[in-house]
């Protein structure tokens, strides 16, 4: 039972790292970045590249994943979103543009690495198993949970306590006012994408480490779960995304534990059923404060 709990927290942590980047872009720019699963996947592959080609240890590879995908995120914005922002296009256009971008990149990765599972180099990942109480826990997963919490704490610090964070929050609240108040909008947007994609990339690398199996389409299932996470937690709310992620993680593992084997597929339905329920009953989600319904 305790093992399942650790598992749930692990799953929740990955969801959280993924969703928080997604939510960040949404809260600042009001768009759903459908290319986010791409940076998630790229992070895993960047780590692979660093470890197999340069022989870097996993820890450094993860750092590299963060930096490379962060920069890639800025590139993504320049190519797919910035031209639309310039002419004031509605959010749907941005979604579709990022979709096109994602299709291209994922396909390129499939051409390079093949659509099937790839593993990290043998022996490059720690294999310890710890005994905590009466549960046997994978040390790597525990480490990942710790890292995820650390990263989210770092994000909280940046958003609340730094000038950059204040700029980003101002931009999220009211873009026009922010511009008038002298916020360097371009820099704030670039920083938003750097942070969002970097976190997504690290999440992908960490997940890759945990399962030791990565593939170009690995981001898509997380993208769909991320919708639920954001809606449950409240669209546009970062703490909401984190909360939603853990609720989903725990809910899914609980569903797995309590459902008979034949109905295991319904575990996925749990996420979407929840999504649906929240949108219909309390569209604002738990911590959201954005207008979800039309006036």
């Amino acid at each position: 039972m305790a093992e399942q709990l650790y598992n749930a927290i692990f799953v929740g942590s990955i969801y959280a790292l993924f969703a928080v980047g997604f939510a960040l872009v949404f809260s600042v720019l009001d768009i759903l970045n459908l290319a986010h699963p791409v940076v998630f996947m790229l992070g895993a592959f960047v780590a692979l590249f660093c470890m197999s080609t340069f022989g870097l240890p996993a820890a450094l590879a993860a750092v590299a994943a963060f930096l490379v995908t962060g920069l890639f995120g800025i590139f993504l914005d320049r190519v797919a979103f910035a031209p639309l922002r310039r002419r004031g296009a509605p959010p749907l256009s941005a979604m579709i543009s990022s979709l096109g971008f994602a299709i291209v990149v994922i396909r390129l990765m499939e051409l390079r690495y093949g659509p099937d599972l790839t593993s990290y180099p043998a022996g490059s990942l720690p294999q310890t198993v710890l005994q905590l109480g009466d549960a046997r826990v994978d040390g790597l997963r525990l480490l990942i949970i710790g890292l995820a919490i650390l990263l989210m704490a770092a994000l909280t610090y940046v958003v609340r306590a730094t000038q950059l964070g204040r700029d980003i929050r101002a931009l999220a609240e009211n873009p026009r006012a922010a511009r008038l108040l002298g916020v360097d909008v371009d820099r704030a947007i670039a920083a938003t994408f750097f942070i969002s994609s970097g976190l997504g990339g690290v999440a992908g690398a960490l997940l890759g480490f945990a399962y030791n199996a990565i593939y170009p389409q690995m981001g898509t299932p997380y993208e769909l779960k991320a919708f639920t996470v954001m809606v449950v937690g409240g669209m546009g709310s970062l703490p909401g995304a984190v909360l939603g992620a853990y609720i989903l993680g725990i809910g899914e593992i609980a569903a797995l534990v309590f459902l008979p084997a034949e109905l295991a597929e319904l575990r996925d339905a749990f996420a979407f059923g929840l999504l649906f329920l929240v949108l219909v009953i309390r569209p604002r989600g738990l911590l959201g404060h954005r207008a979800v319904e039309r006036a």
Partner: protein
Amino acid sequence: MDALGEFFRVYQTTIGVIGINALLALSVWITLYAGQLTLGNAAFMAIGAYGAALLGMRLGVPFPLGLMLGAGLSAALALPLGLAVFRLRGVYLAIATIGFGEVVRVVLLTLPFTGKALGLNGIPPLTELWHIYLSLAVVAYGLWRVQGSTVGRAWAAIREDEIAAASQGIAIRRYKLAAFVAGAAIAAWAGGLSAHLNFSIEPGDFGFTRAVQILVYAVVGGTPSVAGPVLGATLLTALPEILRPLREYRDIFAGLILMGVIIYLPRGLVTLAELRKTRRLQEIGAADVA
């Protein structure tokens, strides 16, 4: 003439698929025209596909009746769904319909009589090309005429400015629901036709990816007129065939076309026709999709 006959025989399935995709694109177009972004039409397609196939195979229901019942079932589900979500704006509506789509997919994976993950096999190939194209012609014609009527204008008004539209005496909920339900029914009809064109169907055929694909047909083709979705579906379905030698890179082209259109020709490829009049890309790029 022989060459034409040969062409038909080789590409028969593709031509059929083009027609079905055009129907699906039109099903999304209606809701886009009324200002709603739905990603649930792949699920309605699934309901039509499974409905018609199961009714035909297990209960011996004649094909046309099976199609109608499938469409009817979809419409019946679309109504409460639409009521539940019509107030949600933009992105949230999209997400809600994605959620619905996933629930349907998972239910199909779980219900005993749907064949679960293996899907349904051995569906009799009852669909003829003329079924598909007659349906397409009827639907396209109907939508074209509706576009110029009070209903079409009401939808356009809702899309442009819902708050102002309400004050013009337009019952917003009723009109949005009508578009949503009509789209669901058309998608289901297309699904029923599709199931009897291919020999088998499985839940994975009707997921998020498919829903996005249908949306892309409509958006790339263009939203100002009925011709848009048909054009988009034709082009994007035929593209893999045309680019067969470049099979590996087809998706990349598709993705690039998608980005190019949405950034430079946001109302879709049909607006290229307006180039003759205005000669300036900026002018047609002025307005956006929805």
